[in-house]
């Protein structure tokens, strides 16, 4: 299923390495004299004017972007205008806006499609529902609907307002950057976008292993107590206990805590999901039992064991006394950033979120990372982060240019995700030159040098969507590997400014790269997957919230000692009789109907 950097572009077009190989030393030398390094030939330019081209080929330390082959029959003549919804926020250089930016200008030159903004929303759950509901109620749906939330998608389907794109997709979708890229996990990508075998839109896919946890730990504290990076839950406890007792934190006396935890036990930062995973269960998840039926994990006996352990840890001061009032970012700012805590189970991006604050506030802080700890029986599992967001890109029923938009999406998917294209965005929009020594700087935070070239994505379609949508979930990791395999082996005098910016990263961003590659490699091995991936069932709609409350209350009361551990049994029984049994039946009806 998982291939190492699978998408070689050689078969589609000559790559930069090929070019260098073919062109011979003479041409390369001539180019270096002019550019300072040997650039990629601007390929597939067609009639596209040079000023629309991404990259900075005219700068002494700049680079050229190789455009993917222009799709057949494009740009269409006469041009077509397509309306689309968008998720904000965005920021452009002066004079540009979402309908007229370097992205749309290049796009219009390549495809002949002009985009018109139907409506937009800032990243906000209520606002997006409102805007889509309004569009539905007024009967004016945009041609292309970006990241439609699941409940709106349900409404659209129910009322037959979505175009079935199955046949067009088969005919025109990019064979590598759409079809192959989205074929991971036995069709997992299509869990929402496909309904009864028909494709009703394009999936919203994010980076693989985005929230998969690793163990982040203070190396300097480990040295201080003379211990190693823990590999089991028992060792983790011993280390955390030692940190607390040695009171190594920066806060007032006795304020050091052992392990960062947040209001949700299974969450995206400072999570305890690897502890539950060490017993093979995941609260809130539905997983198949031996007989193949889905079971709700939160009521399984293993949960009680873990809760008992967490209860003991809380009593011993391993967790903050008020951990259950903290949102995940607050653990990052206050506990990790505030240096009162030296252990957090957080994703690879912790190296960029939380840890930098810690080092700023205490320059002697040295962090390291390791795999999640194993349980008493050697199980090592964590919550699997599903790269498929419960949201779909849809086309309005009756929209006649689905084929054109799909071709556009395929073209951008390749430009943005194929490292061979060397796409780093547009000068003046995504970055600008800081000085003549060949340094680049991000502008308005839109180009994050450490996190790949997808910080700014302002063209309609999954790979261009603000907020991390793409078609290949391993795209970011592919970039890291490409940099390490190709850029790092490029002689120093041939490197351009972008290569240098990346290769000369600080300790934490190198750590982020390492952790990211590791997490993605373990992604499909260590993850516990929530197998219930559809609309809430009837009884969930009615009783789900009460049952969730009951669970949340019971768990926090058990851990903080306000309820006895045996209250778990009462909870499990109440859960079953209060609608849980009915929900289990409904969930399994869906589950077995799937197979």
């Amino acid at each position, binding site marked *: 299923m998982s291939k190492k950097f699978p998408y070689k572009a050689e078969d589609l077009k000559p790559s930069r390495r090929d070019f260098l190989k073919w062109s011979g030393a003479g041409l390369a030398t001539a180019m270096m004299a002019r550019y300072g390094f040997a650039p990629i030939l601007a390929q597939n330019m067609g009639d596209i004017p040079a000023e629309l081209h991404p990259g900075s080929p005219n700068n002494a330390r700049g680079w050229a972007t190789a455009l993917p082959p222009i799709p057949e029959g494009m740009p269409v003549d006469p041009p077509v205008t397509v309306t689309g919804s968008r998720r904000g926020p965005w920021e452009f250089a002066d004079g540009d806006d979402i309908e007229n930016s370097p992205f749309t200008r290049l796009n219009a030159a390549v495809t002949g499609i002009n985009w018109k903004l139907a409506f937009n929303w800032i990243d906000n759950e209520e606002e997006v529902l409102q805007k889509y509901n309004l569009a*539905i*109620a007024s009967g004016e749906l945009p041609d292309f609907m970006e990241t439609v939330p699941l409940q709106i998608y349900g*409404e659209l389907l129910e009322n037959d307002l979505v175009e079935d794109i199955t046949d067009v997709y088969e005919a025109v979708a990019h064979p590598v950057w759409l079809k192959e890229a989205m074929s991971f996990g036995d069709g997992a990508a299509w869990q929402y976008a496909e309904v009864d075998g028909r494709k009703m839109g394009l999936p919203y896919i994010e980076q693989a292993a985005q929230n998969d946890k690793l163990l982040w730990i203070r190396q300097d504290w480990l040295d201080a107590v003379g211990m190693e990076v823990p590999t089991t839950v028992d060792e983790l406890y011993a280390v955390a206990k030692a940190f607390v007792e040695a009171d190594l934190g920066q806060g*007032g006396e006795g304020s050091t805590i052992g392990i960062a935890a947040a209001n949700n036990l299974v969450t995206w930062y400072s999570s305890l999901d690897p502890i539950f995973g060490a017993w093979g269960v995941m609260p809130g998840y539905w997983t198949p039992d031996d007989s193949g039926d889905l079971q709700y994990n939160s009521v399984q006996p293993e949960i009680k064991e873990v809760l008992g352990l967490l209860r003991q840890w809380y009593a011993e001061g391993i967790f903050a006394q008020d951990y259950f*009032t903290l949102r995940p970012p607050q653990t990052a700012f206050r506990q990790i950033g505030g240096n009162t805590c030296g252990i957090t189970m957080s994703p690879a991006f912790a190296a960029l979120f939380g840890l930098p604050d810690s080092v700023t506030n205490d320059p002697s802080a040295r962090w390291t990372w390791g795999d999640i700890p194993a349980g008493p029986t050697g199980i090592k599992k964590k919550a699997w982060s599903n790269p498929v967001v419960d949201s779909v890109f849809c086309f309005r029923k009756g929209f006649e240019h689905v084929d054109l938009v799909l071709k556009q999406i395929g073209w951008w998917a390749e430009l943005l995700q194929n490292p061979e294209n060397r796409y780093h965005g547009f000068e003046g929009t995504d970055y600008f030159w800081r000085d003549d020594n060949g340094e680049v700087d991000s502008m308005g935070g839109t180009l994050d040098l450490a996190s790949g070239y997808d910080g700014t994505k302002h063209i309609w379609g999954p790979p261009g969507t603000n907020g991390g949508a793409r078609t290949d979930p391993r795209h970011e990791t592919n970039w890291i590997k490409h940099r390490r395999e190709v850029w790092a082996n490029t002689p120093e005098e041939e490197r351009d400014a972008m290569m240098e910016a990346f290769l000369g990263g600080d300790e934490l961003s190198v750590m982020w790269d390492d952790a990211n590659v590791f997490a993605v490699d373990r992604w499909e091995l260590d993850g516990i997957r929530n197998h219930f991936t559809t609309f809430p069932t009837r009884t969930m709609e009615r009783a789900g919230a009460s049952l969730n*409350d009951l669970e949340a209350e019971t768990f*926090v009361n058990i851990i903080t000692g306000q309820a006895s551990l045996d209250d778990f049994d009462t909870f499990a029984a109440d859960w079953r009789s209060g609608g849980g049994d009915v929900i289990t039946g409904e969930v399994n009806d869906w589950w077995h109907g799937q197979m």
Partner: protein
Amino acid sequence: MTIREYMKRAWPLYAMIIPGIFFVLLFRYYPMYGVVIAFQDFSPAKGFLNSPWVGWENFEFLFSLPEFWRILGNTLIIAVAKIVADQIGAIILSLLLNEARMLFFRRAIQTLIYLPYFLSWIVLGGILLDVLSPYGILNQAIGNFGVEPQLFLGSNNWFRGTIITSGFWKNVGFSTIIYLAALTAINPALHEAAAIDGAGRFRRIWHITLPGIRPTIVLLAALSLGDVLQAGFEQILTLYSPAVYRTGDIIDTNVYRVGLVSAQYSLAGAVGLFKSLIGFGLILLSYWLADRYAGYRIL
């Protein structure tokens, strides 16, 4: 004067209120037909006209929520305590400010207590979480007196108190303004006469100032009855956690969580209607009270 003569003279006045009436009809009354969704299984795609009717089902569901009585109780307790604290606090504060002699001091204090009113709960929530944490400044302060750290936001003993106090802190400045305005309307001659007759400060407050602002007190107190089911959704949403559902979960926050599972417009509509009906009854009551004790009436 016949009606005809009267209208000849007064018609511009009537004409002037027409836009106002139109505005109220258009923006206050016309949208009210939306309450029908409380009796439907509403779907935006089908609209008001075609969504299936379900009778009282949404209300039955609301009242059958296992937590219903708990959340209703929490809502009432928190809202009533807030109203009482807010009114009494505002009266006392405005009396104190009114007695302060230095104008600069008075203005400075007034501005300071008014300041938090302009901050959103999202911002204040972050600040309070820090200030009230077991490692926060408040616990460090009481720790100096040998008091154990308290979980102001995480314990059922403290949560309501924290909500009421922080709500008071945020809003009291606003209520104080109205009382201060009422206080300026009291004839200074009364104070001077009382002072000559030998009345001290407290006696003057009791016999002149308080009776002078009595209509305002009764009116504001009566009008705030309409808020008796508004316990402060944003505030509680930013500050609560499952550990304090027992004492801090109100109708709005509960329905919000129900809505998170799936979009339940109709249920939200039913809750809105339920709260409006209670509010309507209380406004009638407060109107009667205002008439009875403050002589305030519309007709």
